[in-house]
């Protein structure tokens, strides 16, 4: 089988198991709680409320004056934050994910590589819920759905592949080196501030700007913001570059994981 089809083939041939695991993973956090799945919406709702207050009322923000309504500004922050937490959740959960599912590794004949898809899938579902919520608020604030909403899947798709590749790498290293989880917990907040969530890439001094583009979130944040709030368009050249980088990480991550997984059972 061609190398480039392998990771997708594994997911496809185990799709039923994947679906069961994904549902299980999403429900695990809320199971036993009284509100259950509603928490998937409540958490971002609270976020919107806080950001509306802080960035719409208290602080003078970057984008004030550029949007039709000042109430759109908190939604811009919200979009940035849910995108970041999608990424954050994946990189902080991945290092421990194999260990926390170790019975699958050691006790069942199991396609361990689909666990990375599970992490990404769960975060993607939450992101989807948050964006649906965002759409509702945009209708409330702007009175209509922006056409750019349709472009969001296009923008986020390469990020999905990139994050899966990253998840494999972190799965693999984290299974051996337990410090990775702690390390990522420590640096992830830093990552939040070097991503253009609370500011635009234009505000970054042009000398430092090149470095920013290596942050996988930069492209997504800038373009999603543009199509959703400023009637902008996708930077298609950048988009192709982003895809190229994403696929590189995806396949490299898979290859790395496949090599490393041989020793999983011996170290956990």
């Amino acid at each position, binding site marked *: 089988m061609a190398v480039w089809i392998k990771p997708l083939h594994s997911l496809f041939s185990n799709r039923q198991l994947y679906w*069961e695991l994904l549902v299980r993973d999403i429900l695990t956090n809320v*199971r036993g709680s009284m509100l259950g799945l509603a928490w998937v919406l409540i958490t971002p709702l609270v976020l919107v409320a806080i950001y509306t207050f802080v960035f719409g009322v208290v602080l003078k923000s970057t984008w004030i004056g550029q949007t039709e309504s000042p109430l759109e500004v908190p939604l811009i922050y919200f979009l940035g934050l849910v995108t970041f937490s999608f990424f954050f959740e994946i990189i902080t959960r991945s290092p421990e994910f194999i260990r926390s599912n170790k019975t*699958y590794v050691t*006790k069942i*004949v199991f396609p361990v590589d689909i666990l990375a898809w599970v992490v990404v899938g769960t975060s993607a579902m939450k992101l989807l819920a948050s964006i649906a919520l965002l759409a509702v608020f945009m209708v409330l604030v702007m009175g209509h759905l922006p056409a750019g909403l349709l472009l969001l899947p296009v923008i986020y798709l390469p990020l999905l592949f990139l994050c899966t590749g990253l998840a494999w790498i972190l799965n693999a*290293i984290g299974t*051996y080196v337990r410090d990775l989880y702690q390390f990522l917990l420590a640096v992830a907040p830093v990552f939040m501030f070097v991503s253009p969530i609370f500011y635009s890439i234009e505000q970054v001094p042009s000398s430092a700007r090149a470095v920013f583009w290596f942050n996988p979130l930069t492209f997504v944040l800038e373009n999603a913001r543009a199509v959703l709030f400023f009637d902008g368009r996708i930077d298609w050249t950048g988009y192709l570059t982003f895809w190229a980088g994403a696929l590189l990480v995806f396949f490299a991550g898979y290859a790395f994981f496949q090599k490393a997984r041989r*020793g999983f059972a*011996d170290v956990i």
Partner: protein
Amino acid sequence: MSSDVELSVRGLGKVYDLHDSPWKALLSSLFGWHAATRKAALEDVNLDARPGDVIGIVGANGAGKSTLLEIIAGTRTPTSGSVTVRGRVAALLELGAGFNPDFSGLENARLSAVAYGLTPAQFRERWPAIVAFAGIGDFIRRPTREYSSGMFARLAFAVCAHVDADILIIDEILGVGDVQFQQKSMRFLREAAADKIILYVSHNQTAVTALCNRAIWIDDGRVVKSGAPKAVVHAYHRATARGTGAAGTFSELGDLVTGDDAARVFGEAGQEAAGALPLVDFGTADIDDDGTLVIEAGLAVNGKPASSFHGGEPVTLSIAWTGGPSEALVAFVVRDPLGQVLFYRDTGGIEATKGVKPAGSGQVRFDFVLPYLASGAYAIDAAVADAGTGPARIMGRKEFAASFQVSSRHISAGLANLAMRAAEIAVVEGSEP
């Protein structure tokens, strides 16, 4: 359907790399490096199985049983050798692997079944049968954290019983649950055995002999003995009962216990090294027992049969045999209730028996003073060996050839008692009270 099912293990070896840092462990997986310290867990294991084979695997903890099963199941990578598996494998290495306590029995069963390779549709179809098999009533819809360990085991096993595996790998998991469920799962395994390969690890030796049609005994990563379950379990049981079952002890004596070297017991070398050597070998040596050799033994005091002693009396042990070798050597051991060997003796070193080589059948009388043993039941095993040319070979042995009771009149702690005559305490003059 099952005609293609096959399991073949060739020269399988597993060496664990003991890395001193996790980074090194990671790098060695990536590049195939090895650590400086390595520990062999399995060495040159071979195994072939076809549908209908139910193979029991016995051995002490840490002997390598689980490693073997995990490699066959595909969850662990072997260091050398190969495993060829054709057919769907269901490994029950741990009951309820992947069960989440917050989810209901139904939800856990579904995920578990899909992980074992069923489609959700197949699962729905079999669900009633699984519920019936588990027999835990309405609990099936409750979170599994509310389950007793027995209920947990019932459900987990019920799922495994319905996943259509061709090769079932079962690692010491049927010890849980009540008697009724244990019997149910045993019955299931027996019925399923016809067209499946079953690998069954258990410390329950009765279960192994009852269920399996072949057995292997693994010690220190090697297959020490394989063959009929009864013989294998027997050999293993004797080894453990003697308290030498620990892997370390065995490897030191390994070649004595397992090989044809058993003959040393009765050879000259064995006699000279009087003591340890014969004791180890008496029970586990491979024998050429074709069933023609018959051994009888009896105990007597003053010519009258007896089986109850106090210790200290002169006892006669007579061992008679028919169908033996032309030059016979006769030996016996006395074991305590735990199977430990207390005494060993044979005719080899005894002057009076020299040159007396009865042909075919005969009788030996050992007259000795019974030591002061602790109260309890004791057993005597007797054996006849061929003392003809070349190293002696054990021709046959009889366990529990005779047994006797001791009710000791002496008090002391340990394997034997002292026949204390008197004890005196002297006060040294001038010492302070």
